[in-house]
């Protein structure tokens, strides 16, 4: 059962090959057996999952179900789930029981999907390795000495290991695409505003976006169709119709114009990763696409701009954790300032503190214009690079990450960790969609091909990714872990 795609699972549920209860129990058993080694879940909600499965089975018997009803999924622990712990990977929220559901959760519930639990993540989604989680690092199922990527590392590892058919993540600077690449699965970051941020714990509000991590582009298409759409409760959610993302998957690619940004193939790129990506591009040529080099001249300013804008927004968003209304509170505060300061000191981990301090510093008097205003101006130049490129080509392609998954503990210096996101971070600054698809292996660790499109081009990205997956079998490879331990 754990080898099937969402389309296959939906067909099997429909034909009565197995029930949702049997399917859910199967995945819960796999999590029980294997997750001690992976640490991909923060909480497993078995009882609720089995109850939801029973409801889905009953609805099916009564003839009232949608296509994804009864399929088990997992949620990054950044999505608020009513009545359940929602930790965001932080000690600050270790005791937080969310009083309401995120819109994404409501939409998945309405579609009849089952939630198996909440997946591990970098604390407050700040990280590229899943090592900053209060609940410990997640291991990569392809190699237990490697990181799974981050911040949606738990979601990616769980899907890759076959502990769940697909999972939801969020992406502020690469947090869906990079872990998808490191774990050999498919991950889509939609256009900013395509999916509601309501009930998703905020990191950097002008960059955050939710999306699916799954076994294939087709599975991502099914899930995006469920979670996308306008939401009055998120003022940045875009009022625009949601196309049928599955319908266009099989459109032929003849005449597709692909751009390869020369800045994505320069210094710092692992030559073996480059080789895998160029091989993938050749597959597209054989499918009728044409390829040309393009330039995104401000690429190297994306990480500097991001590390002003994201921490600035984070320092503001995380000011709500004050030890008064919810979350961690220190013992015996002497006065109100002591209550704030010690609750936050005890509740936040190192990386979160670093970003709060950077953001507070760059927003403070005397530094605001030199850093924050400047970074926002550069952000416009970065977005313009993409818009100019999309005048000439349909999609851009390149590596999702300069290297395959690195070893746990390998990146001790924060800046060297930040530089990992060189190919993903500009995409969030520009607000465009991006998808990472498996495109080979280097030293037994997966390589991701990143495909970028212009604003609201998700249907095209999914079509382009799906056609690659019809011509190759990288996305069908499974880690030995999936059979050995689960």
């Amino acid at each position, binding site marked *: 059962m754990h080898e099937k795609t969402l389309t296959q699972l939906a067909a099997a549920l429909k034909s009565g090959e197995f029930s949702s209860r049997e399917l859910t129990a199967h995945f819960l058993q796999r999590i029980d057996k294997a997750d001690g080694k992976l640490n991909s879940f923060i909480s497993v909600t078995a009882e609720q999952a089995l109850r939801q499965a029973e409801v889905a089975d009953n609805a099916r018997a009564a003839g009232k179900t949608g296509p994804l009803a009864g399929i088990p999924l997992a949620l990054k622990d950044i999505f608020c789930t009513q009545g359940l712990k929602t930790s965001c990977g932080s000690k600050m929220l270790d005791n937080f029981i969310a009083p309401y559901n995120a819109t994404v959760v409501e939409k998945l519930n309405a579609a009849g999907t089952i939630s198996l639990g909440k997946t591990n993540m970098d604390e407050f989604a700040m990280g590229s390795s899943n090592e900053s989680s209060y609940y410990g690092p997640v291991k990569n199922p392809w190699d237990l000495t490697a990181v799974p990527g981050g911040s949606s590392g738990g979601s990616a590892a769980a899907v890759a290991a076959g502990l769940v058919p697909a999972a939801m993540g969020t992406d502020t600077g690469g947090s869906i695409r990079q872990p998808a690449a490191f774990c050999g699965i498919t991950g889509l970051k939609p256009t900013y*505003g395509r999916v509601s941020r309501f009930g998703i714990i905020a990191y950097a509000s002008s960059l955050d976006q939710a999306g699916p991590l799954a076994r294939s582009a087709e599975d991502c298409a099914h899930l995006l169709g469920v979670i996308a759409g306008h939401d009055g409760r998120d003022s940045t959610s875009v009022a625009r119709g949601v196309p049928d993302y599955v319908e266009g998957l099989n459109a032929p690619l003849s005449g597709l114009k692909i751009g390869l940004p020369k800045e994505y193939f320069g210094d710092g790129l692992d030559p073996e990763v480059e080789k895998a990506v160029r091989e993938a591009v050749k597959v597209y040529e054989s499918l009728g696409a044409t390829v040309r080099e393009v330039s995104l001249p401000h690429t190297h300013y994306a990480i500097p701009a991001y590390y002003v804008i994201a921490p600035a927004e984070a320092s503001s968003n995380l000011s709500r954790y004050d030890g008064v*209304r919810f979350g961690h509170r220190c013992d015996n505060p002497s006065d109100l300032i002591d209550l704030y*300061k010690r609750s936050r000191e005890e509740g936040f981990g190192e990386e979160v503190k670093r970003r709060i301090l950077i953001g507070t510093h760059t927003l403070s008097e005397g530094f605001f214009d030199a850093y924050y205003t*400047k970074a926002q101006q550069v*952000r416009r130049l970065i*977005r313009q690079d993409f818009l100019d490129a999309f005048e000439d080509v349909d999609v851009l392609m390149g590596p999702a990450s300069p290297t395959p998954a690195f070893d746990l503990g390998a990146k001790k210096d924060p*800046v060297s960790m930040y530089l990992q996101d060189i190919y993903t971070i500009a995409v969030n600054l520009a607000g465009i969609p991006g998808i990472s698809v498996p495109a080979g292996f280097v030293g037994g660790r997966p390589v991701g091909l990143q495909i970028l499109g212009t*604003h609201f081009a998700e249907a095209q990205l999914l079509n382009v990714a799906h056609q690659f997956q019809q011509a190759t079998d990288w996305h069908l490879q499974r880690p030995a872990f999936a059979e050995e331990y689960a």
Partner: protein
Amino acid sequence: MAIEDSHVRRAAHLARLAISDDQASGFVDDLSRIIDMVDQLQSIDTTGISPLSHPLDATQRLRADEVTETNQRDTFQRCAPAVENGLYLVPRVVE
């Protein structure tokens, strides 16, 4: 622009974050490296470029000023560390 101990302590106070002397010196090192990297921005000429705060250049949507939410105080206070009679408890602020 170099980061000094006083910058870190000022930011920590503004962010209401307690830090020990040891931690402060570690943060001076980390933040210095980050600011060095960020300072690459200063080499771009951005004269006449307007700042971008929303990737789709959207403006804040407005709605009619009507009550849309019901009072859920009890629900929301269930996750609070200390409440009494519907009020959040904190150390005494006014004598």
